[in-house]
């Protein structure tokens, strides 16, 4: 498949004490929803901060929309096209809803106040009550704060959204709504809009994920279209008697007294000949866990 990229990065590097983000090549496809998956501390937020332009102390180059690089991004009004939401303290804690609305209007030409208010209503930011613009942001729950961030970023004219852990503070119903919103955003863009989001809730976000990037200890360890990954990795289940032989072949394996279950690389399937195994298409969650397990520094 011939893909266009909304972000093309090369040799992205950022060092912390005891941690190095080191990404020789990063390509985020245009027109798709790309999920960034990885353990805590894998460097997902660091990467997203760099891409969103809220961290500038990194090496390497990043090119956006095939139009400008990360240096040019800081000039003029280039960030207008990129929407970002992050975990933690996104807004100044003393701000009220009214201030969020007014300051957003000052920050971005493409911010639509009416759309923001209608999205707040749609997402029930104030529950069943009326829109209380005097309410302080710090008084909302984490889930509601995320709803406000999403309403804010979706009320702008953007070509790309970078969402750091948007699903984490949300309830299952709202996660479903988030998927709907992501799909809606991409559809409205007619292939010109893209979304890059990080998540630990891979199962909930799977139906909206087109492309996945899996990170471990500051590096990309796997990436590809979800449909391609599902061809590359096969879920295999077998009997207990074969588990030791399977252990040597499978990419990752879980065993119990009755048998084993694991992820096998499609190219290694032939090696399982002679074993009594069943094969299934794995979910993105299963692939992600397998890849993370295989690359994790955690003792198992």
């Amino acid at each position, binding site marked *: 498949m011939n893909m266009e990229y909304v972000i093309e990065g090369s040799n992205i590097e950022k060092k912390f004490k005891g941690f190095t983000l080191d990404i020789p090549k990063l390509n985020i496809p245009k027109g798709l929803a790309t999920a960034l998956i990885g353990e805590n501390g894998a460097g997902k937020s660091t990467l997203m901060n760099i891409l969103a332009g809220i961290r500038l102390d990194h090496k390497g180059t990043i090119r956006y929309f095939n139009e400008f690089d990360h240096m040019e991004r800081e000039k003029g*009004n280039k960030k207008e096209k990129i929407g*970002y939401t992050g975990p933690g303290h996104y807004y100044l804690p003393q701000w*009220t809803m009214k201030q969020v609305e007014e300051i957003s209007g000052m920050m971005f030409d493409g911010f639509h106040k009416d759309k923001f208010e209608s999205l707040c209503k749609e997402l029930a930011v104030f529950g069943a009550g009326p829109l209380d613009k005097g309410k302080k942001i710090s008084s909302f729950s984490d889930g509601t704060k995320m709803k406000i961030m999403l309403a804010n970023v979706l009320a702008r004219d953007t070509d790309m959204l970078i969402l750091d852990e948007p699903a984490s503070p949300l309830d299952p119903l709202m996660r479903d709504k988030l998927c709907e919103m992501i799909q809606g955003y991409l559809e409205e863009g007619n292939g010109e809009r893209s979304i890059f989001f990080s998540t630990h809730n891979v199962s909930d976000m799977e139906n909206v994920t087109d492309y996945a990037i899996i990170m471990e200890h500051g590096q990309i360890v796997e990436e590809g279209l979800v449909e391609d990954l599902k061809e590359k990795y096969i879920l295999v289940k077998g009997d207990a008697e074969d588990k030791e032989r399977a252990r040597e072949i499978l990419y990752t394996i879980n065993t119990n007294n009755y048998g084993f279950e694991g992820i096998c690389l499609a190219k290694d399937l032939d090696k399982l000949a002679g074993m009594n195994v069943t094969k299934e298409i794995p979910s993105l969650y299963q692939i992600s866990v397998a890849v993370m397990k295989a690359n994790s520094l955690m003792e198992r």
Partner: protein
Amino acid sequence: MSRTIKNYWAFTRWGYRFAVLVVLPLSFLILNLFCLYAKIPLVVSMLIGYMYMVLIDIWADYWILGGFYRKSNSALEYLQTSNRFGRIIRDVVLTDTIRRFLLYVGLYLILLVIGNYYPEQIGWYKDCSFFPLLCFVTSQSGVLIARHLLGCQYVYLVASIATLVEGILIAPMMYLTEHYFWAVQGILLVLTAAISIIVVLYSLKKVRDSYYDK
């Protein structure tokens, strides 16, 4: 100009504006007018009025830019996503500085005009002439420190210390004003300009620093 004020307006809440732009100057004027009317030496009401103004002004700043100068302030993420972050902060800090200057100096000038009707108080105006600029310098310095702190109790502590410092400086300044009037005014004017420039430039430096972890 209107954009600069709009940015400041957006950063301030209704309660802040009401307290700082209406209640504070009105209380100051009422207190001083009462002293003029009751023939109480103007220095008393000016001293109390300006000290309270500095205290409340520094404390109230917490509701605009509280904690803004803190290292690794993660609450700036949203602002960082805009190319206008620096410009907006410059507008807010600059307008706030001008507002503070106009408030302190303006109130003195209003009282000076009213003072024409109270000839017995005229002598105090000269003695208190350094109050507005001294208070401005103290208030700006207090704000410069307080914006590094999170938690309004800490900001209140800084505001109290700034007010105390201001109070300690009053007597020697009065003595100096009596003997070296223009020198004192000149030095205060230079300090006013310096602290105003420092606060604006330091705020812009903090904006730039916020993009870097080191």
